[in-house]
């Protein structure tokens, strides 16, 4: 076992991706691959002590009593190919959809999936328009007849043929490049998009979280105030990094013609930036919702929420942040210690129904 603050991951992969379990002790714990490419899970602050337990993925149900939803999610993640934030999100939505975490979670998962679908269409259309614009072709006609209509598709094909000629590319090659780019940019979207995509929205919410947490921690005499200040600071660093990455992507998109022509060299950059952004913002959605929920409650619940957030806050890996956040977190540990607040009913060892319900409610708000 290593201490929370000794545990300062160097890379995102070492930090692992957050999993939206509904079992309170496992909520937002992180999963990663060990040296033998086997999944393992990191459980921080067990029983309010210092340190992180590393449990092999297979043994997780033996080590902790889990809700049925979590058992299903556990199996889905084990079956999935990887454990990147996107892989985990896919599994989480699939598990939530079957109804084991309540009606709210089903509705939220369905809303998220239909939003993904909408964004997929939108980004494909936008990239085609950008490609045409880059070679000086007019695209408003497509919009008029509709992209999905037969006429619209024919028109698009013709125009894209022309565009491919001008770019000196095979049409299939151009389609292939755009399709690949669409997949990479799907969760980020374009800066000009009428409806911001998921990660852009998340970054905006994270800015809101930072402001709200800073306001809360300022002039607050509670013991949790310095911890809240620290959480705001981590959010600030994360937002700055995310803003840089989005800036790079937007810049690349702005010179679209170059991007298409030099796809072979640029592809790696776009892929890296897009994956870095999803790693950067991974785990924040739940914390933002948790905090928004706490803001409507009394001071005591807000203090508790700040402790809960601190427990699983996604610290930037050493290689990412200039400031060593784990060192700073270490200094706060003493004020994070409280009387033991069990995640299970101490009389029966059973799950705390109220806590599970709270997590499920927050899950229902995520869309």
């Amino acid at each position: 076992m290593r201490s929370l603050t000794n545990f300062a991951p160097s890379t995102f992969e070492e930090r692992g991706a957050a999993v939206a379990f509904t079992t309170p002790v496992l909520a937002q714990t992180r999963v990663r691959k060990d040296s033998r490419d086997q999944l393992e899970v990191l459980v921080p602050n067990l029983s309010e002590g210092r340190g992180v337990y590393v449990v092999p993925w297979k043994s997780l149900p033996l080590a902790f009593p889990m809700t049925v939803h979590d058992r299903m999610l556990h199996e889905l993640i084990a079956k999935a190919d990887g454990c990147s934030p996107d892989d985990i999100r896919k599994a989480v939505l699939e598990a939530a959809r079957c109804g084991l975490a309540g009606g709210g979670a089903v509705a939220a998962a369905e809303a998220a999936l239909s939003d993904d679908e909408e964004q997929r269409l939108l980004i494909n259309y936008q990239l085609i328009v950008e490609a045409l614009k880059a070679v000086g072709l007019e695209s408003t006609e497509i919009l008029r007849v509709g992209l999905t209509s037969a006429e619209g598709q024919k028109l698009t094909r013709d125009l894209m043929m022309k565009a491919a000629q001008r770019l000196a590319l095979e049409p299939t090659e151009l389609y292939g490049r755009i399709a690949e780019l669409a997949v990479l940019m799907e969760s980020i979207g374009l800066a000009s998009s009428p409806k911001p995509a998921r990660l852009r929205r998340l970054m905006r919410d994270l800015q809101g979280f930072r402001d709200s947490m800073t306001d809360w921690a300022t002039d607050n005499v509670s013991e949790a105030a310095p911890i809240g200040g620290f959480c705001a600071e981590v959010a600030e660093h994360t937002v700055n990094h995310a803003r840089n990455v989005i800036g790079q992507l937007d810049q690349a998109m702005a010179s679209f013609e170059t991007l298409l022509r030099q796809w072979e060299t640029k592809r790696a950059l776009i892929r890296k930036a897009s994956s870095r952004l999803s790693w950067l913002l991974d785990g924040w959605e739940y914390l933002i919702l948790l905090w928004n929920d706490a803001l409507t409650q009394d001071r005591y619940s807000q203090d508790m929420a700040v402790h809960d957030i601190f427990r699983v806050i996604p610290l930037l890996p050493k290689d990412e942040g200039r400031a060593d956040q784990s060192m700073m977190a270490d200094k706060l540990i003493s004020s994070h210690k409280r009387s033991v607040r069990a995640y299970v009913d101490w009389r029966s060892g059973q799950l705390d129904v109220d806590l599970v319900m709270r997590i499920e409610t927050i899950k229902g708000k995520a869309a």
Partner: protein
Amino acid sequence: MEMRDLVALGDKLMDIDEAKFRQVVGLLEQMNDHPDIQRTIAVIRPRLVELRLSRRPTLKRLFCDPFEDLFEALGKADPVPLSVIERSLMNSLWPLVEAEIGKDRLRAYRPALQEGEERKTLCEAFWTECAGAVAKIAEGAVAGHFSEPLDLRMNPNRTRALADIAVILSIAPEVAELKAALSPKPVPKLHGDHIEAIQTIGRRLSRVRPDALKIFVLLAASRLTNPSVLLSGLWDMDLGQKSADRAALFMSLSSTVVAQIEDRSRAGQAAGGGDRMAVADLALDLVATLDATRAAMEQSRNKEFDHRLKQVRNSVHSMVKTQVLQDADAGIVSAIGALDGGGDVREGRAQLAQAENHARALRKCATIADSLGLRGELREMTQKTTASLTERAQKELAGPAGNARSGYTAIRMIELIAGPAEANKIMDGIMNGDRR
């Protein structure tokens, strides 16, 4: 903005954003004590408390300071004081106190509202004078009659509250000390230094004002998350009394605590229908309070209290039986049917949420079933419901034309009622059977 418009806003003020809300409160403050303003303030009071707006200091607010903890609770989750003072009584009382003391003398107390060296002395003098005025007003208000000056009918509770206010004001410096020791309110657990402070101030009080000791202890209790907790600590506390006096004080406090439990259980019975989770929460809370009270009263076996507590237990028993246990199986199983399509989606979802709440309430009550003598009935109901749900899940998940969503929802209900271990077992059973 006109006053009329502000007042017309009424409960809309609960939803406007915080900055605007603060602005409106500022405006309302400037408009003095008009009855309409008071009504509006009463409507938005829960939000005022939540935001902890520091309101403009007035003499009226200073007057209330010593006994404010006894005002009726605003939120559902706020602790109910053991001895309540109505805000309306205080609102009618203050103008009388003002008239009794006189405008000129009151003006002399104004500096007490600002920070300064003489503040403490001035405050104490103000409270002493107010105590005299309230005592005089209380003499004029006869129980059972309508009091013209107060514009209220003097029921026994109001007569008691008036007398309490007079006593509290007369020991205001001690109360201020107590409030400083037991803060911030509400105090979730009594620690050594809390008990020490109550004892020290209490001992001092019992030398000079033994009659004020009961209300002093009630005030201390009202600053706790669960006011009846103080009762269990009280027997071991040395408040400097003779043992006979101590027994009498303990009896009288016990009576107040028991009366409050009785009130709450009656209110719970009367509420009926509605939110089953709230019923379960209330039942759990009442049983915990009952146990704490009974344990505290071990020292002074009293048949009358025993009898009253037994009656409360019976009423909690029937509350759980009729509002949580009854028809649990039918309600929960039929809600899953709402998923099979055909009906209104929103209605189906609401029905499902209600059924989930019912299932959680059942599980919650398992912890108190033993002490309420409902163990057998609860187990029977749980088993019956689980069996029907298992059958349903089996049909939906293993059958050829099943609706997987309904099947998983049935499993979820089992989880809520019987816990994840049981639900996982049943789920594994169904899935493995399917594979074979």
